[in-house]
């Protein structure tokens, strides 16, 4: 199962757990299974009525930027982080 790091301000959904483990071969399945185990994640993470990550949240899988459209593959050893999205300068 993939390891999901829960941001502190989303830990209300996991009963305070910082790390949870969820099945899934891609991000779409991960979020569906996260929602099933801990209801409320879909609303926090996705734009309403879509399969897109909200623009102000960034997802990292094993140190890589995940795409907003949840296509990225995930494996058993993957580590997934949800971060506030940031802007860059020059």
């Amino acid at each position, binding site marked *: 199962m993939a390891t999901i790091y829960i*941001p502190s301000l989303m830990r209300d959904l996991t009963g305070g757990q910082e790390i949870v483990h969820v099945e899934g071969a891609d991000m779409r399945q991960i979020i569906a299974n996260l929602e099933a185990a801990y209801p409320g994640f879909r*609303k926090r993470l996705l734009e309403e009525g879509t399969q897109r990550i909200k623009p102000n949240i960034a997802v990292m899988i*094993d140190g890589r930027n995940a795409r907003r459209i949840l296509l990225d593959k995930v494996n058993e050893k993957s580590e997934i982080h949800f*971060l506030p999205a940031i802007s860059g300068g*020059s």
Partner: protein
Amino acid sequence: MSQNGHKVIGTRPIRHDGVDKVTGRAVYGADIQLTGLLYGAIKRSPHPHARIKHIDTSRAEAHPGVRAVVTAHDLPQIADKLADLGEAIVNLRDASNNVLAYGKVLYKGHAVAGVAAINLHVAQEALELIDVEYEVLPHVTGVLEAMEEGAPILHEDMKTTSMGEETDKVSNVANHFQHKMGEPDDGFAEADVVIEREFTTQTVHQGYIETHNATALWNEEGQLTVWTSTQGAFSVRDQLAEILQMPVSKVKIVPLEIGGGFGGKISVYLDPVAALLSKMTGHPVKMTMTRDEVFEATGPTPGSYLKVKMGATNDGRLTAATAYMAYEAGAYPGSPVGAGAGCIFTPYDIPNVQIDGYDVCVNKPKTNAYRAPGATNAAYAAETVVDEIAEKLGVDPLEFRVKNGAKEGTRRADGPVHPVIGCIETTEAALNCEHYRSSLEKTANGKVRGRGVASGYWFNFNGGRSAISVSINPDGTINMLEGSTDIGGSRASIAMQLAETIGLEATDIKPYVVDTDSIGYTDVTGGSRTTFGTGYAAHATGQALIREIKERASKLWDVPANAIDFADGVFSYRDDEEKRSTFKELASQAGDAGGPVVAQVSTQPDGSGGGAFATHVVDVEVDRETGKVDILRYTAVQDAGTAIHPSYVEGQMQGGVVQGIGWGLNEEYIYNDEGSMTNASFLDYRMPTTLDLPMIETIIVEVPNESHPYGVRGVGEVPIVPPPAALANAIYDATGVRLRDLPMSPPRVQQALAENGG
């Protein structure tokens, strides 16, 4: 040949656009001339916070020479929607209201109307004839004041959100987020030394010398063309399409040379107004900002309040750190507090960390990115506390940093672990450099002297989209089209990577930055991504050309393509030593074996790869009487991964250092009680000049980035991060007084010395 067996990378060729730029021929945004050109100007709010009750444009419209007047009512009304516009997360409704105020003005200088006229003077005269009736509202410009109960509220419908969750509370706090790792309370309990300090920083501007500009032509077929200077032509295209509610296919952006950006030339200000004025008049309309408009109405980087607490054991190990970071977003949400929070403790391996970030609206211009946005404010606080802890423990501040330094595998406070990074290598290079090893006389000329150090981190955006399109000329040279606007020599650094890949000289590549209709989508020149990301595309383009030339050679030589090797710039057939040619030799014939040789490549690296680290050493001399701080010597050390063109890497380091020195010692927006900036000119907003500085020494460390074929790390941003903290630590070393408020300008230093008997 340079190191690592590279022929081009690591050398210092003259940049391709250099001659145009030293002879005055290069065409920057404001240099464009078009037939039938009209000139535009913007009417701006004199109040920091007011309701617009009525705008009467009739007198302006009747003024001789005026051709059109626009207000927010001429812009489509846009729903609240967040969009990811090439690195910056933008609320499109806010972006539209920032271009022309709708309903309320939220800062002095906020645009309320635009005029097009036969020349600039007439346009400016007409501004005086636009009558705006305001209901002036109470304003708030300080971040802590804006967070208080009962503070004037900028957005009556704005509720605080935190990581996707919206609360019910209407407040100027747009966003609160938190990073938490381990248990900070436990970590502080283990510590022998705990230091907690408060810091403030003021609003500062990127200070690019070229003011914003846009020239628009909306033709009769509804096609909009905008010539402008921007860090991201495609980002401008997307913003215009959204703000004007038109398809992107109807918008073409022609990026002209850009006179500096530093993060401040991504958002659009004038472009939509120029477009509307052109639509109304049928003529091209050119708009340029004055310098005071740039200060008052573009996107400076925020003032902030920070409280930082760090603890360490007597054997010199950091055990815990917490930070409370409140950043001014300006008029609309979106300060770089998120980035600052991701950087603040990142040079260190600390097991227990909590960081709380607050994004707070105030009646100042909407802030924007400025070189490692948010990280300089953060480092000023953290690096000063680290210095104090090292002093309490009686250890060398750089040895302390090496001992606690982040390395591959260290978990960042925001969660992810570092891949291969050059944090410790950079700090060690500073520790061992001649400057740091040299002795410093503590007094001279009746003044006191001191030395300070500080480190800094910036993420680097190791991702983003880049496209490159090349065609081979019969003489074997290559025309290379790219979408990354060139702010500081990136044509050269990208062309050099293509040249290296295919075994040519840098001068054999002719790079061109082209318009949005002529190249694939390319993300902004920002986030330290261009030499990394568009260089990544250049390398991939070189690989594609090698494959294509092998195909052509296979036809010319009548041998299988897979039996042709390419090494050291030479194509050769394995079974016949006679069949050998350089890229150039083959290029001259290749067109006869299948038509012109071209290649188009687009890439989007996955964002992995580590960030950039820097450590700086500075010697200062402080005049106790006047409070003036002079810089005697400055050395910047930085991990560049692989330096493609070392002169431009040094240049980025030196430029970042000097911006950081300005931020540390002089620069600030000074507001009066009426919420008006009182120093909106280069005379009063005091940026460093030649006379304020010594040479800036540089030491480039190279710990290659595993995620780039040549090991490139972005270098543009991190050098601005350490200077204010390094200066504060040096001032302390000289005077025995710690300054925790920026800028450390003569009046502030003088006052701090007087209060502390330093």
